[in-house]
């Protein structure tokens, strides 16, 4: 128990030090843009590959329910509420944790194992500022971007299912699409995902930065990163959603 508390405290100190380096100059803009670009590119395929089928599944199940009431015109409203408020932010962040978070843990972990981080420190370069801060900042920027693309893919999946496969009228779908959703829903998704991005980035870099134990240690760091980052942002999701909507 005390061990767990000590780890959480250690992580808190790490998070504070990284946060300070994210907001104060000098900034490592080159690495920041490079990481943001790479993360967006590498997560783009997985995010679309996950949100599109999920949009189709909502269309399928929602149609089964609304057919009972003869209220098929409500389906697009339901799809846009579900995708914009919850599914796209959560699924995009799960994929970012799996793809970008684990690759950050692996990169920093193998830099630690090969003593590259120690070498940076010896050259009087602040490794937190140089290696960690741009990665965390890149995820804060990339997560909302991927969320927006996930929104589009999820809605496209719903459209594909209900209009192209099940043959609902396309005009009715488009007319009811924004029935219950407002610009605030999109904005809430963006705020949520940038918080998730910060959580994922900090946890991934923490595990990578303090890796021990050779190649097996890198594997363990990646494993812990994915699990703990996902757990933490799901918990944060409940709190944020309660604060924003309820």
């Amino acid at each position, binding site marked *: 128990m005390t061990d767990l508390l000590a780890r959480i405290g250690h992580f808190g100190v790490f998070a504070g030090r990284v946060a300070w380096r994210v907001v104060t100059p000098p900034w490592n803009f080159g690495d920041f843009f490079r990481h943001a670009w790479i993360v967006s590119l590498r997560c783009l395929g*997985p995010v679309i*590959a*996950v949100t599109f*089928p*999920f949009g*189709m*599944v909502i269309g*399928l*199940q929602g149609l*089964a*329910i609304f057919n009972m009431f003869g209220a098929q015109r*409500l389906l697009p409203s*339901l799809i846009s*509420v*579900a995708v914009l*408020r*919850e599914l796209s932010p*959560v699924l995009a962040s*799960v*994929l970012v944790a*799996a*793809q970008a978070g*684990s*690759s950050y*843990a*692996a*990169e920093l*972990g*193998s830099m630690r*194992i*090969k003593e590259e981080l120690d070498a940076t420190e010896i050259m009087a370069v602040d490794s937190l500022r140089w290696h960690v801060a741009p990665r965390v900042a890149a995820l804060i920027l990339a997560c909302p971007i991927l969320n927006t693309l996930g929104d589009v893919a999820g809605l496209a999946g719903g459209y594909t299912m209900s209009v192209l496969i099940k043959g609902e009228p396309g005009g009715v779908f488009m007319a009811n699409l924004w029935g*219950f959703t407002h610009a605030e829903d999109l904005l809430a998704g963006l705020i949520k995902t940038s918080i998730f991005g910060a959580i994922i980035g900090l946890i991934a870099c923490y595990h990578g930065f303090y890796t021990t134990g*050779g*190649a*097996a240690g*890198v*594997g*363990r*760091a*990646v*494993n812990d990163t*994915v*699990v703990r980052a*996902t*757990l933490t942002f*799901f*918990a944060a*999701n*409940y709190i944020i*959603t*309660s604060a924003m*909507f*309820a």
Partner: protein
Amino acid sequence: MKALAWIGGLAWFGVDWARSSLSCRPPAGKTLEEAYRIGVQSLPVLLTISFFVGTNLALQGYNAFVPLGGQRLVGMFVAMAGVRELAPLIAAAMVAAKAGTEMASQIAVMRTREQIDALEVMAVNPYWFLVTPRLYGIILVMPALTLIAVFVTLVSSFLVSVFQLGLNPATFLEFARGSTRMRDIFTGEVKALVFALIICFVSCYCGFVSEKGPEGVGKATNQAVVVSCILCVTFNYLVSQVLYG
């Protein structure tokens, strides 16, 4: 092109495993050990995640149905979305993140240290020795984990609906029970078996073909969880389409 070659390699991996190990007796002790490890290790993670999925399902269902005036529909929404789709999928995602990444990194470390070559030199079939116990183990525990996820999701959304949102508990339960059938549970179990196969084969394959060294291990682990998630969501759609479509 690379992705196609990778999928082909995965398929050959499955065929190779089936040809060399399907007819052999599985190593019973190791299978139970793996089942214990996968099941028990994933359990705390699974409980936490499904708890928060349930809470959010209730919150969002409430918000979505307030404009319709149908707060009673929350129970129905939670039961349908949770039992049919979200709980099995979340269970799979968490098992992929916890047990799948561990399989990938263990096997990749063995590849790095040339222990897999050593197995072959000793005339032990590495597919039988490494993949079989993990596969049978995950098939044993995955349906149980899915049931637990369904249960925890429903309980947590009940708690949120009653204590945070102030809905009537009897109405919630009545609508939740009215909109789930035994068939939905069975569908969840079918999905769980499909996801178990996907997670095990993808993770073991990523470990087997990983490059050597710490970067190789990290990359294999990373690839395992991303590819399993994508394939699980895709197959979730296919299974839903077949069984509900």
